[in-house]
């Protein structure tokens, strides 16, 4: 329906200001202009007027971009030339060309929100009448299909239920980023399939993300695509690892990524769904499914999702600052993580003692007799961190002391020593051997305020340039 030149009033009956101006509509219709009255909610409004139209689908209101009712518009030559909303006596008199219009009414009454902006309706209107930017293949379900089961049947889930990715949900998810839906982030391994922002949004819906998580999910996907991270190998290895996401900076705090109580555990939507969205992108876009290209012998629960934030402390340099970003920047750091190994030390009250505890526990990463194989993340709890802070130990100092403590004579580690066939090559005998390659031990602070425990997250035993090195990516939009 194209609207004729003249005056258009958009109204809804439940709006008191629309009711206030209803008696004026006859005057407007009696003037020299064609009057069209678009009624959003109830055709009883302005029922006697020939130009009254019940905009039951809200299509006309949507196309006119109505935000408030009543709205008065003048069309001329097929184009809008004037508009006002609410009741402003002067505006209405000027636009209508009737200088006495509503002379008895108050000068000003604000209007109400247009029905097009009601919760749930705006998305639907955008889908039905807007210019859809969605390009993904539409999958029509059978009438008898349960949407949750349909997602399982099509192989889209990690074994847990997913949120069915309806076009309305995907549009809402895309509203969480300013990036174009058709922007290609890169080629997702193992199939090296192009991944658009829209595909990330669909998988973020599946994972249970809120739209405000989109910038974090996009940064995580981009980090996984950096060649040094080696996502292909992380996926297809027979070893345990999966992409673990460490969040730093204000954007993580803004969306509620947990860094406190149970930081490595369940219960926080942001942690759970951001890590899961990354894994679902790998699965669905990249085609990385367990038992197919994913050949993990055992895997780890972190392959469902593994995301947490650092509990940043002003006295301890946070991970992203250590890695060259400004403190006020927001980042994700991806690490090829295995499982969580607890470090229980409830007796150390000096940094020297606690560092020795950490070193003793870190030696068993991969195997006590292996070295420079897997990287590791040491998650220091606030209670343990306090021991270092009170003694004036920075994070860098702790790392330096651990590096020293973890450098041992190769003779102790050579294959066959201690009756254990596993071990480093005999050529390393007589040399000092560090447990981790340079840069292979990351330290972050996280956890609840009570508990003299820390945690070690071992990395892939093919860490370093041959397999995977941690990658940080700034979160933008």
């Amino acid at each position, binding site marked *: 329906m194209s609207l004729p030149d003249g005056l258009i009033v958009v109204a809804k009956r439940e709006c008191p200001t629309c009711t206030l101006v209803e008696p004026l509509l006859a005057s407007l219709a009696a003037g020299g202009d064609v009057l069209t009255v678009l009624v959003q909610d109830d055709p009883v409004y302005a029922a006697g007027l020939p130009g009254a139209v019940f905009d039951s689908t809200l299509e006309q209101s949507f196309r006119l971009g109505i935000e408030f009712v009543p709205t008065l518009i003048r069309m001329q030559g097929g184009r809008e030339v004037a508009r006002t909303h609410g009741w402003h006596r002067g505006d209405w008199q000027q636009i209508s060309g009737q200088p006495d219009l509503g002379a008895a009414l108050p000068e000003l009454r604000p209007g109400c929100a247009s029905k097009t902006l009601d919760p749930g309706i705006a998305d639907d209107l955008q889908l039905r009448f807007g210019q859809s930017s969605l390009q*993904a293949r539409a999958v*029509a379900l059978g009438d008898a299909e349960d949407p949750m089961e349909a997602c399982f049947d099509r192989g*889209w889930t990690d074994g847990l239920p997913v949120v069915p990715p309806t076009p309305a949900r995907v549009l809402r998810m895309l509203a969480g980023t300013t990036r174009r839906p058709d922007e290609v982030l890169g080629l997702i391994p193992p199939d090296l399939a192009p991944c658009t922002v829209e595909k990330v949004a669909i998988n973020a819906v599946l994972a249970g993300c809120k739209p405000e998580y989109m910038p974090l999910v996009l940064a995580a996907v981009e980090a996984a695509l950096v060649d040094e991270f080696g996502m292909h190998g992380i996926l297809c290895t027979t070893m345990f690892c999966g992409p673990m996401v460490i969040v730093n900076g204000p954007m993580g705090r803004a969306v509620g990524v947990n860094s406190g109580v149970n930081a490595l555990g369940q219960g926080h939507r942001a942690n759970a769904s951001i890590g899961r969205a990354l894994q679902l992108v790998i699965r669905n876009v990249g*085609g990385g499914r367990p038992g197919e290209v994913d050949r993990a012998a055992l895997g780890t629960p972190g392959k469902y999702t593994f995301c947490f934030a650092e509990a940043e402390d002003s006295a301890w340099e946070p991970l992203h600052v250590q890695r060259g970003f400004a403190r006020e920047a927001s980042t994700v750091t991806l690490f090829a993580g295995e499982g969580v190994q607890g470090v229980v030390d409830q007796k150390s009250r000096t940094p020297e003692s606690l560092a020795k505890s950490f070193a003793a526990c870190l030696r068993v990463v991969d195997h006590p007799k292996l070295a420079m194989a897997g990287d590791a993340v040491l998650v220091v709890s606030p209670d343990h961190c306090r021991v270092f802070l009170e003694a004036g130990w920075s994070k860098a100092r702790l790392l330096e002391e651990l590096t020293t403590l973890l450098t041992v004579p190769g003779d102790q580690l050579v294959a066959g020593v201690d009756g254990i066939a596993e071990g480093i090559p005999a050529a390393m005998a007589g040399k000092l051997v560090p447990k981790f390659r340079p840069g292979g031990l990351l330290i972050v602070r996280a956890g609840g305020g009570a508990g003299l425990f820390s945690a070690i997250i071992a990395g892939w035993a093919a860490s370093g340039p041959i397999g995977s090195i941690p990658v940080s990516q700034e979160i933008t939009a």
Partner: protein
Amino acid sequence: MTSLVLLDPTSERSPVARALTARPAALAGLAVALLDISKPRGNVFLDRLAELLAAQGVRINRYKKPTFTRPAPTALRQQIAAENQLVIEGLAD
């Protein structure tokens, strides 16, 4: 009732079943690539295969990927395809 529509989260590569390449009746006169993916002890397996194939008079070409953690470089894949009719790959240790 209008059926529910979901948006496809996958790469939309249709699952077309591809036919296997026809098997040669005999190896005589063919070149066989043995690809070591740099997994520990993969070479032990491939060495033994090379012995067995050589005993049958089969022409063998040996190749090695720089690291098992990444796909073979494009140039290596092209070289193998250009120089051989068959390829045997040690997939894991």
